[in-house]
């Protein structure tokens, strides 16, 4: 549809690929193609109007790309908590050793819009050490 729009423009009606407007037209076409791309941003699958703050016991850990994760038991309920890429966690001092099964962790984050019991953590606190994950 974006191509049709550019073809309809009056001065190009005779021959879209001729004359001075040609390069502008092509540039316009290419840029319009990209216009639909940035519909979503990171974190967009999570409801940031509903911050959660949980403390629980780590049941499972994954220190893996593209995102680390833990399963956290909070009052008998099991949450999947999506963390940051391992390289970022490591550079901010949240090492693989700290994410131990059985450890107590506090996470602040947002619930997934569709996947039940999944949240993405903004920050995590283990042994009184808080790491920002965004």
């Amino acid at each position, binding site marked *: 549809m974006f*191509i049709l729009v550019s073809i309809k423009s009056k001065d190009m009606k005779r021959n879209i*690929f*001729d004359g001075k407007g*040609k*390069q502008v037209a*092509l540039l316009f*076409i*290419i840029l319009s*193609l*990209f216009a*639909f*791309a940035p*519909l*979503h*941003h*990171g974190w*967009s*699958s999570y409801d940031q109007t509903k911050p959660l703050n949980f403390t629980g016991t780590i049941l499972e850990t994954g*220190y*893996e*790309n*593209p995102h680390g994760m833990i399963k956290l038991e909070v009052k008998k309920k099991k949450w999947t908590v999506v963390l940051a*890429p*391992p*390289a970022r966690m*490591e550079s901010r001092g949240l090492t693989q050793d700290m994410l131990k099964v059985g450890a107590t962790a506090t996470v602040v984050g947002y619930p997934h819009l569709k996947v039940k019991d999944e949240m993405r953590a903004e920050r995590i606190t283990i042994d009184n050490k808080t790491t920002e994950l965004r």
Partner: protein
Amino acid sequence: MQTADVFEWLEYSHLAVYIRQSPLLFPAIEIVHIIGFIFLVGSAFLFDLRLLGIARKLSVKEVAGYVLPWSRRSLLIVVPSGLLLFISQATALSTNGVFGLKLILILVAFTNAAIFHRFTFPTVSNWSASEIPVAAKAAALISLVLWTAVISCGRLIAYF
């Protein structure tokens, strides 16, 4: 063995686990993949633009001779890096609709290129500098749209 089992087996293979657990290998492969498709799609786009009438001083044949081999060579790094990224997330990707769409679009884009090279391009020696056949212009436009969509799908996999 079901198809789903194959994806699971791939995802838990030593190589896939190693890629996931190494902090920098995963982004390194992503970088290789990106550099690869810069050549793949970049060369194709420059050729498409020539067909659409940009840079008329250069002959279509010469532009094709220079840029298209780069497009083909790039497959040698785009495909392996893509496969490595795929196995590291095989189960999730196998059910990801955007990834499926991306693969279909790649197939259509290659078909478009194949049709162009089979039927339209062989007569290039007869094309005059200012008159590119409509079929060639159409193939160029389709290529621009499809490859843009492929890249968009690639980027959007992570958001769906």
